[in-house]
């Protein structure tokens, strides 16, 4: 394992400190407990937006703190949900008096820690509503699993709910639009290589040189099945098809197509995937009206990609287009 880190125990704190130093105009970093807020603090009367989760997925979530997106982010240890002690003050810091929406990726640990953190914040007088993101179609949503995971679709929820909060929607409305995004966004990922968590010191799973893992999450968890390496177009089809089918996308619909890199994938490869995913959508009569390509929801240095499709209507499109000024998304 070779990483540009010092002590594995310090990597998250040092990294977030560096992040704060680099972007004082956008974010403010608090340590002990560690969380990140929008520079300038909460806007009175605006619904606050908070997210968080294990570190190792950068720029998610701290990179999405800023005007038009999150008010605060809580980075946990590497791949480990943050603790209530950090979640509670972040929720409080995001409160402009109009309540706070916590956007939580659906993992047992995140759900439980946010539940506890919200409980305490509510006791302190903050109204907290939670929206669970569960866009990963690799996981069956059934009594046989902890439910589908939240992966790259989380970015779409944060962006669009952030725009709704920014334009002045009230708590119910922000929750409603966030849930609308959750209901209409699906993702599926593939790993070409595993990643190595600093404290573990070895890859999170073993993959032969001619194998890829379909249906991986973003925590270095193994996926649903292992298949032989194939050309990008074939892999893309394996990712896109279940997404489209789960969404029951039909002829004439409009979508956002988001091809996300897992951290160690060259941008050029993501555009190769995008090209074919777009063709496959067009062949089904689906129009791609918005696009995002890049490594936004990552799994350390893992090589691989995920394909996310969000069904768009006029409202979601307008909110997606609304200005955003964070370190990782900016328009």
């Amino acid at each position: 394992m070779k990483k540009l880190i010092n002590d594995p125990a310090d990597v998250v704190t040092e990294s977030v400190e560096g992040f704060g130093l680099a972007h004082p105009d956008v974010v403010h970093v608090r340590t002990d407990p560690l969380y990140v807020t929008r520079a300038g603090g909460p806007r009175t009367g605006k619904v606050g937006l908070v997210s968080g989760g294990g570190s190792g997925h950068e720029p998610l979530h701290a990179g999405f703190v800023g005007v038009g997106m999150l008010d605060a982010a809580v980075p946990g240890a590497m791949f480990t949900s943050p603790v209530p002690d950090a979640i509670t003050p972040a929720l409080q810091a995001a409160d402009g008096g109009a309540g706070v929406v916590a956007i939580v990726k659906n993992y047992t640990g995140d759900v439980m820690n946010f539940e506890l953190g919200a409980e305490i914040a509510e006791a302190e007088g903050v109204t907290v509503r939670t929206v669970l993101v569960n866009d990963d179609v690799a996981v069956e949503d059934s009594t046989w699993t902890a439910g589908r995971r939240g992966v790259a679709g989380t970015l779409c929820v944060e962006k669009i709910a952030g725009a709704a909060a920014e334009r002045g929607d009230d708590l119910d409305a922000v929750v409603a639009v966030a849930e609308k995004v959750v209901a209409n966004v699906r993702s599926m990922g593939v790993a070409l290589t595993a990643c190595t968590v600093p404290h573990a010191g070895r890859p999170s799973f073993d993959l032969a040189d001619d194998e890829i893992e379909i249906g991986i999450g973003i925590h270095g968890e193994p996926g649903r099945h292992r298949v032989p390496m194939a050309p990008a177009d074939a892999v893309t089809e394996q990712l896109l098809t279940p997404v489209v089918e789960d969404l029951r996308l039909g002829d004439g619909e409009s979508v956002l197509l988001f091809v996300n890199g897992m951290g160690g994938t060259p941008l050029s490869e993501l555009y190769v995937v995008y090209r074919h995913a777009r063709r496959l959508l067009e062949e089904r009569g689906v129009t791609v009206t918005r696009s995002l390509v890049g490594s936004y929801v990552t799994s350390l240095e893992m090589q691989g990609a995920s394909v996310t499709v969000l069904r768009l209507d006029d409202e979601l499109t307008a909110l997606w287009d609304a200005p955003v000024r964070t370190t990782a998304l900016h328009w």
Partner: protein
Amino acid sequence: MGQDGVPDGTAEGGGSSVTTLDVTWAQAWTRAAAQVVAEHRDELVELDRQIGDGDHGENLHRGFTAVLAKLDGLTEPPGQVGDVLKLVATTLMSTVGGAAGPLYGTAFLRAAKVTATERLDAAGVVAMLEAALEGIVVRGKASPGEKTMVDAWTPAVHAAVEAADGGAEPAAVLAAAATAAEEGAVATDPLVATKGRASYLGERSAGHRDPGAASSALLLRAAAEAAA
């Protein structure tokens, strides 16, 4: 070590010498737990790497290191067993994160509530274990057989009840619980996970031991050894 050892003055029943566990035991347990977690850190990481995200050992190690620091920093010795367990609970809750943080945090918090006393007899130990399991279930909503730490705690509670019913002393109750937890952890091997991160693997989760069940067995064995 840590066991009171003094026959309880008000011992009832058929002439058996009855011992109780006190706050010294609770501290000894905590220290022993921190030690086994440190010793088995890599093993727990490896179990979690197989069917999870490879952080379970690291998370618990970070948590128990903080617990030790808290314990060492105490200016006044804790008066009741529950005081120690509450310190463990809140520290784990605020340092472990992941699934295990809230689960163990809630377990120890519930256990602390029923141990607001200076001494635990066998029934007290049973009540403590039952409360802990209840906390895990309330928080995580898992049933037995879902390949989680519940599969270590459920047989542990069962064995503890049985031992106490049979007149065993606190140390023996804990020993029975630890043994049952160890067997329970081993028994998770063939299970297909339906809760927690391992559930994402579906059938592929079979053939691996649940890391939380494994760590639970370690914690219960530490409790028993601190009482022995």
